């Protein structure tokens, strides 16, 4: 479970995140929805502990990420905005590197890697170097890296961006699978359909603020449109002219 309370983040004079609070529960998929530059990535970065909020707190399974950053980070798995793969390392080496950094022992790690390869259907690329990977293959490696230590909380920053239909479906299947295992999944996107197909609750962010929250049905009502995309445009538009990152 992830609890964010009154998160604020400023870059110079620009307020990228302005008082965002929400709770993402276990066994749930929480969608962070907003246009480009709304503050989604900055919010996620504070959740996974690489950015310090100017004010506000993040609790990961009750662990304060400002006071115990390493313990909080050990409880999350992240698919970041930029994967940052190493072109000269193989898929297996990428996952082993992160697993070892998480302190997994060798025998357990090898077992876990094979399990993930099975889950993500990526055995055929296991021993290949990342230099020649397609976008879909790169996403799989990054996802496998995020899951190697079997985290309770999973943060995905626009995971289906630029993926083809097959890969998008694979990612959705994994998200549903994680949810069924009782994990807490937070998922950011600017694509309405994407979020509504997967999420139990949604948080609409624009201009660094939460402009709406609820289930997809509740958002349709709040936005005053039967069509979710129209509702999103209406909701996001209320913060138009607000600060951008």
């Amino acid at each position: 479970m992830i609890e964010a309370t009154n998160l604020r983040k400023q870059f110079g004079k620009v307020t990228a995140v302005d008082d965002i609070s929400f709770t993402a529960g276990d066994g749930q998929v929480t969608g962070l929805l907003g246009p480009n530059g709304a503050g989604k990535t900055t919010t996620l970065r504070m959740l996974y502990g690489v950015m310090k909020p100017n004010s506000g707190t993040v609790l990961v399974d009750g662990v304060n990420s400002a006071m115990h950053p390493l313990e909080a980070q050990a409880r999350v798995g992240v698919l970041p905005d930029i994967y940052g793969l190493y072109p000269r390392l193989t898929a297996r080496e990428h996952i082993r590197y992160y697993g070892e950094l998480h302190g997994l022992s060798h025998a357990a790690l090898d077992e876990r890697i094979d399990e993930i390869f099975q889950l993500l259907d990526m055995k055929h690329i296991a021993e290949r170097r990342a230099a020649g990977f397609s976008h879909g293959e790169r996403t799989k490696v990054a996802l496998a890296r995020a899951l190697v230590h079997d985290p309770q909380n999973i943060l995905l920053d626009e995971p289906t961006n630029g993926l083809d239909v097959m890969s998008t479906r694979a990612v959705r299947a994994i998200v549903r699978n994680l949810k069924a295992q009782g994990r807490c999944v937070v998922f950011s996107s600017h694509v309405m359909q994407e979020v509504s197909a997967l999420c139990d609750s949604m948080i609409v962010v624009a201009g660094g603020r939460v402009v709406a929250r609820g289930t997809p049905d509740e958002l349709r009502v709040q936005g005053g449109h039967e069509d979710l995309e129209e509702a999103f445009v209406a909701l996001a538009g209320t913060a138009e002219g607000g600060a951008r990152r």
Partner: protein
Amino acid sequence: MMMYPRWWRQTFVVLTKEFVDAWRDKRGMTSVMITVLIGPIITGFMMNRIADRQKAAEEIRLPIAGAEHAPALVEWLKQQSGVEVVAAPDTPERAVRDKDEYVVAIIPPDFSARFRSSRPATIKLVADSARADTAAQVSRVRRLFEQYNAQIGSLRLVGRGVSPAVASPVQLQDVEVSTTQQRAARLLSVIPLMILLAAFTGAMQIATDATAGERERGSLEALLINPVPRSALAVGKSMAAAGAAMLAVTITTGLCAALLRFIPLQEMGMRFRFGLPHLAGMLAAVLPVCLATSAMQSCVATMARSFKEAQTYMGILILAPMLAGMLGTLYPISNQPWMYAVPMLGQYVLLTNVLGGRYPGLIAFLTAAVSALLVAMFFLRLTVSLFKDERIVFGR
């Protein structure tokens, strides 16, 4: 933080990954290898040439035009060791200009007449002072004639009942302070510089790729998501660079040692015996400084936004050992104790001493090592704080 086994394990994991990554960068590895190997190879070649030249000066061929005008002089010359008198070409100036001959002595027809009447008899020495490769041989020829001049002058004074000492109001006496090994060391003064440069060039690739490269690829953020203290990341990356620097230094030192065994140093007039204790001494002098160079390079490269920018900074940093080398040659009073406390300079002085066959003492080695360690720690701390800085991690 540093006491925990977990911290060390993570540091080691980072170090190993950087090693594997760098080793697979064939292009980068090749360029490092070339930079490390080229110095010793060129130096070896040049020293061989110097030795050859020195040998050539010992045994000279002296073309003389008009030898028949001074038979006594020519006879004397022939008796000197290693001198072979030959006939001169018809046009001495042109022969020297065209580099057919390095020197020609011309004895004019009035030589014997002037000689007999005790008037200064001229001998022309045709030589090209712009040619560095034959300078040693020309000066040997010049010394031969001066020697003959002094010898005949003394005989004439004795013949007139005057002591030759009267004609020498001042006698110049050279007192050589440096031992032969030290003289050899001065000739070999490029070696310390080469070894210090290897401490930089060896670390360069990993220091830039693991920091600036990581930022440029965007992989730094992903890496920082892991529950790893920033200090473990910074130390792991720096240590990987240090390992590469140590490898480069060991290779360079080993090559230089092989060079010193292979090159005929005796023929340069030096009795230099280079053995395993010297090799060990040189490594002990220079290995600690690898920690400092790699920590400094990693730190500077972390500040760079891109790989290219980092490489530009590396080019500036490499001036540091050059400066040490220059100071070392400009001020050869190289036994000031404070010098050991200055990183790079201390190592340079230590290397020069060991190469000169002198043992500078354990304290000197320790001082140099400790100062290098302090510098390494300073830059490591700085790198750790850079890794904690959001402007560095996300500023692209």
